[in-house]
């Protein structure tokens, strides 16, 4: 298992480097211009100067090399400095956003909390709802519950969040006035009331996002449970006289969770980028919103850095999923 992990880690390095190059080249080839949002009243010479100030005058390979150094060498030093109070990164140029003129990583760090709160929470909620639904629909296959569950989750899956978002806003914020819908990222939870407020402002985005997660995970859960319910060991467990609850919740569930856990792990990176629409609808301003904003503003360093981080997360969680698989399933032995 250890050698497997190490081997995969080593293999990941060239993959990631290659991905970063591909992303860079794609972004370079794109004809968008960071000056497009500058008002038309600004004369072209001024725009040209601004462009040069962004470092756009240098040849491509130099810029790529600079980005590599900044991302892989300087940024870790900054992190190190931050924790140990050292000053290795002092005076070194970090990855700077063209849009905000500040280090991209600072913004990422600033945005992580709300992304984790809302998007992460919705994932957790989605999973918590999905798993019981999946279990029960499989256990009572073709029952009314199963049919209804399938139907509702499929509808949840097929309706895009740019519709469900405004819909819940109109219902719960405008008509009923229950929840605020502009997410307050400065809100600090320090007592019961502020905690309640935090809950209230999270409910709607979490609901909208969780709908998609629920739909998908419960389908996987159901399929996996169905696979396992017919296995011989289930009969063995029943023959021991175990109660149905124990048979399903202990024996079958544990086995069924193996593929589902990896699906969950693999879905994790996607939620950071995948919540873009919901983040926009509720003004959550998480990392997804940062990416789409950067894309629209042609802020290449930000796009490059964020997409690379997503790529990294995906590769990393792929690895986690494989390792988890090995840990959860004693039959799997890598190497």
């Amino acid at each position, binding site marked *: 298992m250890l050698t497997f992990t190490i081997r995969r880690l080593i293999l990941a390095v060239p993959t990631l480097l290659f991905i970063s190059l591909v992303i860079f080249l794609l972004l370079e080839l794109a004809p968008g211009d960071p000056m497009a949002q500058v008002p038309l009243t*600004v004369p072209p010479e001024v725009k040209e100067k601004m462009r040069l100030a962004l470092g756009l005058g240098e040849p491509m390979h130099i810029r790529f090399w600079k980005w590599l150094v900044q991302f892989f060498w300087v940024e870790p030093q900054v992190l190190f400095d931050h924790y140990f109070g050292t000053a290795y990164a002092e005076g070194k140029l970090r990855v700077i956003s063209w849009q905000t003129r500040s280090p991209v990583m600072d913004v990422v760090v600033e945005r992580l909390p709300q992304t984790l709160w809302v998007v992460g929470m919705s994932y957790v909620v989605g999973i918590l709802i999905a798993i019981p639904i999946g279990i029960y629909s499989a256990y009572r296959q073709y029952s009314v519950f199963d049919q209804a569950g399938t139907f509702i989750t499929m509808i949840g899956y097929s309706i895009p969040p740019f519709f469900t978002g405004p819909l819940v806003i109109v219902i719960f914020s405008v008509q009923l006035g229950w929840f605020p819908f502009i997410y307050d990222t*400065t809100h600090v939870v320090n007592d019961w009331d502020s905690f309640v407020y935090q809950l209230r402002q999270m409910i709607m985005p979490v609901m909208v996002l969780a709908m998609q997660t629920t739909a998908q995970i419960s389908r996987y859960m159901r399929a996996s449970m169905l696979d396992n319910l017919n296995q011989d060991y289930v009969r063995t467990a029943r023959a021991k006289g175990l109660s149905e609850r124990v048979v399903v919740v202990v024996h079958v569930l544990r086995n069924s969770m193996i593929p589902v856990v990896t699906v969950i792990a693999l879905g994790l990176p996607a939620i950071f980028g995948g919540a873009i629409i919901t983040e926009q*609808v509720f*003004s959550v301003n998480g990392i997804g919103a940062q990416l789409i904003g950067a894309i629209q503003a042609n802020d290449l360093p930000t796009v490059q850095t964020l997409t690379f981080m997503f790529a990294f997360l995906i590769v990393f969680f792929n690895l986690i999923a494989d390792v988890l698989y090995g840990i959860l399933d004693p039959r799997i032995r890598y190497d």
Partner: protein
Amino acid sequence: ERGSDGHVNIIYWQAPSILNPYLSSGTKDIESASLVIEPLGRYDPNGALVPYLAEEIPTVANGGVSEDLKSITWKIKSGLVWSDGTPVTATDAKFTADYCMHPEGGCAQLAKFEGVESVEVIDDLTVKVNFSEAKPNPYGPFMGGQSPIIQAAQFADCLGAKAPECTDANFNPIGTGPFVVDEFKTNDVISLSANPNYRDAAKPAFATVTFKGGGDATAAGRAVLETGEFDYAWNLQLAPDVLAKMAEGGKGTPIAAFGSLVERLEMNMTNPSPDLDADTRATVAAPHPFLSDINVRKALSMAIDRNLLVEIGYGQAGRPTCNLVPGPAVYASDNTDCLTQDIAGANALLDEAGWVKGADGVRAKDGVRISILYQTSTNAVRQDFQALIKQWWSEIGVETELRNLNASVFFGGDPGSPDTFQKFYADVEMYANNFDGTDPQAYLSMYRCGNEPKPSSQWQGENINRFCDPAYDALIDELGQTSDLEKRYELSKKMNDMLTKDSFTILPLVDRGRVSAHANSLGGVILNTWDSELWNIADWHRVN
């Protein structure tokens, strides 16, 4: 009394990314910065100049502007202090100019400092700006939201290439404005509180401000008009009936004001045919096959119902116009001929001019069919306009192909892309433009012969239509030498008419105003389109 009214919530659906207008030209950045840093003078809602940090607005009359129009001298109010308690001096103003004019800084407001030869500190509170040649409108530097004074002490190490690295200063500039930054979350939210050193002890009425960014115009509108979560929402670009419905929510009021932004159709006077080689395509060497006929251009204009366009696309936020320069009022020509749609008249005009309908219903003359490629940037309202205009034009026997392009490409100015508005590889294009401040001189000067984008200039240039009229150029020169205001109004109107109703080179459609909304409980809001909307936030207060 300062701070007595508690908290105010402002929402901009575009989030501010930086609080230094010299590094960003985005409206959201300039306006959010205006809470903190201030210029020497601002424009008021009528476009008139009002002193802010300056004692008064320098003019030729009061001696602030030299007779030869080559220098302007500003006097700063005495006793002003920065929010950190240090005094504001002329050095700060000079530093501000140096900061922006530094060759490596990539200053976004460099245009404001165009023609500036030097900036001198005369004494502690007096600063003089020298221009290299006569400048009838010397109010570029230090005037308006785009050119506020920044503190020399804070930005001393941030000159030139180092400008972007001063994140702390860029996110938390020390200013003279009514508020100071407590926390700046990039592209998200700014928390501010009243500046304890603000020059008027009774202001601002609010102790704290939350300036939230992000989401979309619908959400912003809803938050102010329907749920009351926010007190002020900026630029509600919404379909008119949607806005009207929201206003029924009763929590707030939409307000509108107009500036100089005009949505227009630009006629291409040169031939954009892809059959031409790259050096002649869309250049003056190849006149347009049918748009060079003024009758065609005029008929195209007559076929359009501008009132309906406004009703559908902008509602309160727009009014039909025939002028390129719709304001300030003193500059606006009384040109209203185009406001009534006249399909029959347009048809008659074309018939008369010899453009006859063919079997396919499309007019042609000498084998040239009036088939128009009509491009604009991708945007829902613009596509509605395209659809409507296409239908009207079809009624006068004009065939139209619609095309829309991603805004970042269309306005991106990349000489390699065929889709920029400068290249104009289409017959007609639609976009909006305005001028900075209240003086249209630079704006009207764009249409000079030779200023058109062309291959030799890397397709840079502002005369998008490739309009060329020596008489017009003469007027440009004359305007450049005239400082008498009445005369300037006169000349500007004449030039405006030459471009629009005389030649139909530009077909203005809508004078696009700005609709914002404020909560009913928020008082003191006066919408200003010539400067930052938040120009008078110090006067905002709660009403019951």
